């Protein structure tokens, strides 16, 4: 996928859909990604959160602040963003839009606006992308 994005064939968008713990950890994790985006580091935090999924039971604002430090964010700005819940509404809006599209499980992919229900693995996304590219 990265190569196709690099080549200019694919545009990849990530949106929040909170299904596991929508009022607490899912919401805060999404806010952490948005606060990192304020410093142009959305994808760094995104990758960090996936990498740390094994520790998800411990996730809290304090833990996300430690992740922010680890990926080299401005800690004060990130802390202020998290403490003020600056992106609470941003995340809620994304979640609400996803719900409106009938997204009830994650991950759910849309390829050029058409929903793709994964049966087994991510390779199905690549297959669907290649199909679209060959149209």
């Amino acid at each position, binding site marked *: 996928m990265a190569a196709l994005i690099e080549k200019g*064939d*694919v545009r*990849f968008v*990530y*949106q929040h859909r909170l299904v596991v713990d929508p009022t607490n*950890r899912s919401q805060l994790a999404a806010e952490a990604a948005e606060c990192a985006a304020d410093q*142009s580091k959305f994808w760094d935090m995104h990758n960090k959160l996936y990498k740390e*999924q094994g520790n998800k039971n411990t996730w809290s604002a304090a833990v996300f602040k430690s992740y922010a430090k680890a990926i080299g964010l401005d800690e004060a700005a990130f802390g202020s963003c998290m403490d003020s819940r600056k992106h609470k509404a941003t995340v809620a809006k994304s979640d609400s839009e996803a719900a409106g599209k009938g997204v009830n499980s*994650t991950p759910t*992919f849309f390829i050029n606006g058409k929903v793709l229900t994964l049966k087994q693995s991510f390779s199905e996304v690549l297959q669907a992308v290649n199909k679209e590219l060959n149209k």
Partner: protein
Amino acid sequence: MSLSKQSAKQKQGRSTLIWWVAGAALVAALGLIGASLWSTPKAAPVAGGDRNTQGKATAKVTVTEYGDYL
């Protein structure tokens, strides 16, 4: 003027010329670097929906993932 003194003066003159040429080249190089930095378009600040997006807007295929980090 003796030959040895003349030769020493010529050498000194050549050395000064080399320093002038090197200095001028350095100034020219710094000028070019400065001009290049000045004229290079800076990446636009990431804002709005673009912050969670990778790839060009002109891409043939848009993949949207709805995810939960948990």
